[in-house]
């Protein structure tokens, strides 16, 4: 079934001025209407020209040096081919440096747990309580270790956003991951969690997020977590992928 053409909304769409629901409706129509796609292409051409219309100013002279020095630095880093792919990926995360909170336990983890627990939908209260108990037990276990640490996973600026925290004991095999502010995905997509060892990503399963983009996952690895070098979250087609295709969050363990 083809809906009405969307002429009235094309200009607003090209300007990015539609509300999300309107945009979704237009997207649906565009998927099946070449005529409106052509109109949109024209509207986008016009919109693109607006980019050249502001009053023109030169940037401060010092900026040139900063830009060139920064790229020079990045070029040196990228030239180092000895680094594994996931490390190269991480240097591509603009302005974001890996943060590692070694030994940061009690307070942060408690907050993490409370936030995680509060967000859960109590559809099945009993089941939920059981899961909570298991999770609490896991968190307590992990915290008991003097080596426990909290790893923050952050994403690319401008990427879909979201955060995650992984609580782990490097000597143990289980860890606890809580995400927040991850976008809910379309049904044909899923989030997938990865641990990376010797440059090989190992899937730790797929997940969806609930309210506020929160998901709480008990990670079960088949070897001690200190043997992994990194943890990541990617967006994959439903069912997951054998290899990550679209990594959105990553950090070293």
């Amino acid at each position: 079934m083809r809906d009405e053409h969307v002429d009235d909304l094309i200009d607003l769409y090209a300007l990015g001025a539609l509300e999300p629901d309107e945009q979704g409706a237009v997207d649906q129509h565009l998927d099946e209407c070449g005529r409106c796609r052509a109109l949109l292409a024209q509207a986008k051409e016009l919109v693109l020209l607006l980019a050249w219309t502001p009053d023109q100013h030169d940037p401060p002279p010092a900026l040139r040096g900063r830009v060139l020095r920064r790229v020079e630095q990045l070029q040196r880093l990228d030239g180092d081919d000895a680094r594994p792919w996931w490390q190269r990926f991480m240097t591509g995360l603009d302005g974001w440096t890996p943060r590692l909170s070694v030994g940061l336990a009690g307070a942060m983890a408690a907050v993490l747990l409370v936030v995680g627990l509060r967000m859960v939908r109590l559809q099945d209260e009993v089941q939920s309580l059981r899961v909570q108990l298991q999770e609490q037990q896991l968190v307590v276990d992990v915290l008991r270790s003097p080596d426990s640490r909290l790893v923050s996973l952050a994403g690319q600026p401008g990427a879909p956003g979201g955060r995650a925290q992984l609580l782990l004991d490097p000597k143990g095999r289980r860890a606890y991951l809580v995400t927040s502010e991850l976008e809910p995905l379309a049904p044909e997509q899923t989030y997938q969690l990865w641990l990376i060892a010797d440059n090989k990503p190992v899937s730790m399963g797929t997940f969806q997020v609930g309210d506020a983009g929160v998901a709480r996952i008990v990670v079960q690895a088949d070897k001690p977590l200190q043997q992994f070098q990194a943890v990541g979250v990617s967006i994959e087609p439903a069912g997951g992928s054998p290899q990550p295709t679209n990594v959105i969050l990553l950090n070293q363990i």
Partner: protein
Amino acid sequence: MVRALHVTARVRWVLGPMQLPMCYEVAATVVMFHKVGETANVEGVDEELIERLARGELAALDALYTRYSRPVFSLALRVLGNSADAEEVTQDVFERVWRHAPTFSAERGRFGTWLLSMTHHVAIDSVRKRQRRPQTVSGEAAEHASRTLADMRADVADATMQSLQAQQVRRALRSLPESQQQAIELAYFGGLSHLEIAAKLGDPLGTVKARIRRGMDRLRSALEGFGVEGDIS
């Protein structure tokens, strides 16, 4: 939002040019008689610089910076409203130029269009992040989108045409009734939706929509003959 994400992922998997039909017919002879702007792409200079940059020559980035830092910074400044943030965006944009140079040269696109389109996306993303507003287009999606735009038909005399059209558009934009110009600018430079614009201006819903459409129509007719207007049958 969900949809934007979906698109992101799909594009990244396909990793090929999306099908965005571009109707961009230009009377090249007209171009010859107009003053060439400072960022004009004479004889494929941009493409050559991008190729050199892809081979790792930072001098090429320096040259591209000389050619384009002004429009990039000016656009970022217009969106962000202060020099510090605009500088940050400018730096980010040129870093992306370096990063994507290898794929860009393969696409033989129009560099200026791609660059400013990317600048716009990065600047709007930055504004939204500051306002903690949900992003309708993710940065990565934006990048892919702008790379697709770069794949538009490259038979146009690139920046010559752009700077020429920019003058025309600037003039046309400023000749619009104040309210139409304001609505279009708040959408494009402010990253606001029509509802947000209506709220900001205290106008009834629907009014802003109509203003934007009327304004865009006027721009279109003002620019007729410059390749912006095309026939759809």
